[in-house]
């Protein structure tokens, strides 16, 4: 069996060609000529090459496919932000830089530090304090009180609470079933969901609930607990529908957005028109009208992508998310301890649910929830949290590969010697 390496040179070149062509179109099409566009292009390409080059050089055991997927999704997002408004793209670039630093910190942290199992109580306390503070001091944006102003920036604490929830649940569930730990996990998840529901952040409620259910099943394998979780979730959803008017509004608008086309249904309808108008191959970059879709730079970026790049391209983007999630699950299956495995499952589930919920919302498969498309949507906190998730997954992947190499060193050496012989024969 010959070892086939992932020769990433051609993939990197393809992504660079994509970025250069797209930014060239945006620059030539801008009238008057917008100097910010070439600057954004140089920044984006430079950041991509630097990040990919240094990560793969310093951490050869990293998961390169998921790194490439993230860079491609981020490139698509940045191109669309530039297309919509160069100011958004500049801020997005800044947050990408911060996100990449955060990714490296998370990567090194997962590899080196062994105290993550002990962080459950501090993380539970911090999560509840952050969410309560958001409720009290937060500002409302797009119908949800989930932002805190810090100087000139607005931060969305729920983005970081979801990552902390993954670590809390992993540390409580990694040693099998234990009633006190299960109750603590239930308390944490329940309290976070309640605070988020009160803040009208329905997307984060769904994310945390879904992630908790998946991690519970991954940890215990218990179909009974899975059934109970779904049952509780269904009862909770019904209760939320009865008790909270904003939930009822969202569901009503989702069921028939055309009933109030100029009001609450405007965004959904414009998004659907946008997707349909793009057809299979898209109208072409700069040929669409993404400005007609409210909040297109954040929640509805998928509609803008489909309008200008086409539905087939949109399906490929969904394919990228699926591959990323599958690779996350494979990293979990390769993990040598249950804590790392659960953290990897939790992180993969977060990305899976987040991308599914927003794309399904844009396509009117689910009610809109106001969460962002991972790596592509505008949003500093969202981008940073996604890069932190990537860093955690990469850290676990590197640990797995280091152990794998040591465990099967003789076989690796033999296979690599065979590969060298083949190269010599070819020469």
């Amino acid at each position, binding site marked *: 069996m010959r070892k086939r390496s992932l020769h990433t040179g051609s*993939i990197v070149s393809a992504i660079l060609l*994509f970025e250069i062509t797209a930014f060239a179109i945006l620059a030539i099409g801008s009238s008057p000529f917008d100097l910010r566009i070439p600057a954004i292009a140089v920044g984006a390409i430079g950041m991509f090459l630097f990040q990919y080059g240094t990560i793969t050089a310093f951490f050869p055991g990293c998961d390169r496919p998921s790194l*490439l997927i993230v860079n491609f999704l981020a490139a698509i997002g940045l191109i669309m932000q530039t297309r919509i408004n160069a100011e958004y793209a500049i801020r997005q670039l800044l947050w990408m830089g911060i996100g990449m630093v955060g990714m490296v910190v998370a990567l090194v942290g997962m590899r080196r530090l*062994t105290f993550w199992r002990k962080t459950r109580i501090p993380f539970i306390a911090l999560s509840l304090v952050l969410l309560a503070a958001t409720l009290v001091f937060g500002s409302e944006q797009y119908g949800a009180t989930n932002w805190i102003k810090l100087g000139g920036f607005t931060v969305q604490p729920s983005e970081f609470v979801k990552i902390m929830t993954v670590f809390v649940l992993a540390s409580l569930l990694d040693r099998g079933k234990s009633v006190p730990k299960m109750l603590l996990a239930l308390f944490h998840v329940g309290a976070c969901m309640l605070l988020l529901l009160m803040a009208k952040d329905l997307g984060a409620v769904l994310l945390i609930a879904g992630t908790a259910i998946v991690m519970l099943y991954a940890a215990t394998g218990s179909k009974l607990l899975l059934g109970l979780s779904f049952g509780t979730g269904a009862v909770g959803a019904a209760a939320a529908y009865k008790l909270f008017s904003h939930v009822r509004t969202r569901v009503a608008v989702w069921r028939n957005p055309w009933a109030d086309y100029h009001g609450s249904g405007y965004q959904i309808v414009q998004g659907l028109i946008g997707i349909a108008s793009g057809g299979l191959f898209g109208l*072409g*970059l700069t040929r669409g009208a993404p400005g007609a879709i409210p909040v297109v730079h954040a929640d509805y970026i998928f509609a803008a992508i489909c309008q200008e790049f086409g539905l087939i391209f949109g399906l490929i983007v969904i*394919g990228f998310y699926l*591959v990323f999630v599958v690779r996350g699950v494979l990293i979990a299956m390769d993990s040598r*301890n*249950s804590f790392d495995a659960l953290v990897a499952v939790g992180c993969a589930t977060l990305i899976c649910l987040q991308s599914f919920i927003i794309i399904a919302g844009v396509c009117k498969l689910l009610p809109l929830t106001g969460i962002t498309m991972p790596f592509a949507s505008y949003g500093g906190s969202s981008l940073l949290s996604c890069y932190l998730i990537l860093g955690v997954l990469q850290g676990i992947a590197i640990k797995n590969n280091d152990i794998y190499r040591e465990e099967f060193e003789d076989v690796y050496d033999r296979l690599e010697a065979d590969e060298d012989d083949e190269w010599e024969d070819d020469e």
Partner: protein
Amino acid sequence: MQTLLTVLIEISRVLFLLIALYVLLRILDASAAELAFKRAIRRSGPGRFMGVLEVIDARHSEFIGERYGLKWENEIGSARRCDIRISDPKVQKKHAIVFFQGTQAFVAPMGKARVYVESRLVSGRTELHDGDSLQVGEVLMVVTLL
């Protein structure tokens, strides 16, 4: 310039699609190849690990759950150069050695270190069986032989 832009946009409608498809398919292909390679490695020969030590109890809870693969010879201790490094205050720099002879596993304390097998203090070379408990310092481990 407008003509150039129009031509570029029309070409890009297909180009971007092809690039995205190419990247996705290459990544899928590489993922499949990686899975097949790992499967082939596992089938092609025994791993170097002949056993596993799993920490089931310790004074410092951070060790609990840690698993250490056992190679032909394994030095257990708190020193950096040990094969199995346990940073417990009661574990000596070089505490014990676990080694294999054929398919049999043995443990021997090093120096004046205290080693317990099945809660009994051992003084010299002692055979280890699958499922035995092994204690060094305040760290209790269970032995699994592969």
